[in-house]
């Protein structure tokens, strides 16, 4: 523990000391104000000199000033507030105020309940509206590089048709001739089939998908594997289960992979199970089965070019944008139009898959959010009126406290406790209301919306609620500051 023998700094010879810039000294002088006046009077001058010394040292080091300011800021705030015993002051008497605030709220249970109910309704509606807007409209689809997925439709301007399923033969030609897409797949959600075994027979929705469907979506199975070209072209009856069917019907057992299930009397080998977020073409699909175009139309004996009913999805190749892909598709379509009479007047149209799925919902969701925001505004206004009415009834009480020496700080702190209790309880109810509302929405929403199962409240929603609550508390704060000093105690008491 010996003291190291360093030379006494006083013995260092005098040297020219450049002064720190005036603005830096002014800034530090302001930072010193975090500390109480008596502390500044005792140490302020010395601290300024010490800061100037440190500034000179730091400016000779690369990046030194950045560290200096960061450290100085933290030091000034932390030590200044500690010197003011800020924490002690808040804690001392805080428990009393909290108890008193709780008592004040329970003394008028009807008003308090009404304020809480009004706030909960407004906050809950607004929260549910915002979560819906965020999860459906703003988030990308839950698939890898989902922004590169496009849906392709057939249009016929002469006939006024804009959204018609492409024909199988055209889809094969597009897939073969295009250079803008790294893959293209088609599906059709066919008649539900009867699933037997593992309980009572049940109808399940089936999607027949082409061999590159799962590869294109880049979505692996969570259990087992998806099927690809080998299985599809071999014509072996295989099936991939949806997550919900796997859980509901097969108890979520991984042993299901490799076993056979019976669909419309035909045994299918289960190759895998998709994740719960996979909802292509829609959420209620129970199983995906392969669709081999080569033998898909036995009654025709050929792949039809005039059956317009497919759903086609493609993935943009790297470096290709939607406009370039559309140009290229147009070129292919023009060639096909010359070649086949069935194609006269028909043009393919590529649209981002997300727009295709949620496009129609956009205006509805925006209007919905606007409406619930208005509900919130009305709720906040009503709650403010109720609180103001209640506070007017307490003028005498608070005036008395102020007259007996309660400081503005103490009265404001009690008000803050009351507001916090009310909004915290209202926020809990709002959370519950929003949860119920979102469950309801999931039941009635269009089946093509993916990830509705996961729409719900999370940390970000908590943040939203906090901001919305702050909006409720803010006007009160502003009012309490705008009163004249005269009659201060009365207005301080009433204004919240």
């Amino acid at each position: 523990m010996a003291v190291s023998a360093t030379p006494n700094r006083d013995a260092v010879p005098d040297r020219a000391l450049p002064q720190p810039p005036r603005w830096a000294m002014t800034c530090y002088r302001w930072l010193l104000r975090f500390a109480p006046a008596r502390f500044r009077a005792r140490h302020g001058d010395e601290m300024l000199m010490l800061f100037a010394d440190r500034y000179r040292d730091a400016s000779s080091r690369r990046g030194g000033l950045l560290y200096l300011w960061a450290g100085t800021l933290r030091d000034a705030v932390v030590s200044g507030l500690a010197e003011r015993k800020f924490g002690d002051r808040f804690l001392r008497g805080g428990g009393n105020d909290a108890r008193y605030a709780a008592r004040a709220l329970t003394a008028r249970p009807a008003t308090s309940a009404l304020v809480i109910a009004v706030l909960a309704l407004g906050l809950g509606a607004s929260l549910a509206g915002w979560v819906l807007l965020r999860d459906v409209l703003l988030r990308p689809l839950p698939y890898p590089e989902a922004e590169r997925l496009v849906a392709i439709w057939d249009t016929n301007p002469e006939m006024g048709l804009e959204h018609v399923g492409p024909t199988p033969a055209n889809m094969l030609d597009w897939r073969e001739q295009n250079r803008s897409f790294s893959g293209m797949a088609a599906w059709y959600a066919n008649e539900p089939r009867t699933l037997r075994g593992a309980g009572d027979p049940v109808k399940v929705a089936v999607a027949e998908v082409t061999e590159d469907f799962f590869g294109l979506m880049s979505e692996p199975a969570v259990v087992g594997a998806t099927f690809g070209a080998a299985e599809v072209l071999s014509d072996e009856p295989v099936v991939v289960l949806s997550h919900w069917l796997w859980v509901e019907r097969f108890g979520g057992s991984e042993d299901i992979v490799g076993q056979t299930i019976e669909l419309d009397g035909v045994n299918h080998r289960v190759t895998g199970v998709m994740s719960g977020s996979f909802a292509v073409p829609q959420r209620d699909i129970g199983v995906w089965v392969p669709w081999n175009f080569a033998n898909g139309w036995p009654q025709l004996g050929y792949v039809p070019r005039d059956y317009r009913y497919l759903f086609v999805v493609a993935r943009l190749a790297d470096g290709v944008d939607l406009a370039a892909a559309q140009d290229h598709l147009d070129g292919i379509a023009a060639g096909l139009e010359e070649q086949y009479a069935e194609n006269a007047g028909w043009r393919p149209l590529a649209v981002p898959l997300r727009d295709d799925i949620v496009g129609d919902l956009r205006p509805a969701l925006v209007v919905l959010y606007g409406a619930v925001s208005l509900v919130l505004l009305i709720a906040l206004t009503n709650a403010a009126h109720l609180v103001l009415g209640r506070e007017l009834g307490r003028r005498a009480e608070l005036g008395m406290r102020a007259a007996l020496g309660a400081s503005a700080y103490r009265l404001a702190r009690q008000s803050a406790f009351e507001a916090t209790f009310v909004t915290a309880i209202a926020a809990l109810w709002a959370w519950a209301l929003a949860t119920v509302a979102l469950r309801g929405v999931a039941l009635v929403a269009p089946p093509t919306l993916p990830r509705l199962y996961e729409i719900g409240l999370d940390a970000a929603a908590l943040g939203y609620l906090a901001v919305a609550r702050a909006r409720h508390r803010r006007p009160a704060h502003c009012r309490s500051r705008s009163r004249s000093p005269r009659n201060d105690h009365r207005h301080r008491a009433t204004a919240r």
Partner: protein
Amino acid sequence: MTQSAAELLPLTPVAFEILLALAPGERHGYAIMREVEERSEGRITLHPGTLYRALGRLVDEGLIEELAARPSPDRGNERRRFYGITELGHDVAAAEAERLESQLAAARARFQPGGGS
């Protein structure tokens, strides 16, 4: 004196560092800061707020004393307030060193294989 020294233990790390820095002789704030920084090889940086809060407390407890401000040749001859360690400060620092030493011995005996006190 020993009784009051024991009452003031344990010292905060900053207070102990300041007493260490003042042990060789009187110093002003900047010199204390530099000494602590050098001795701790840069691990402890005393910003003005932390330093002067600790100096104020040490003065109030009588462990150091404030001396009259005088010109400091190393700082462009600006008038600086100097601080010196008191007798009580010496005793407290020595007692703190003893306390730390016994802690260190116990720690060595228990945590280091083959270590003795």
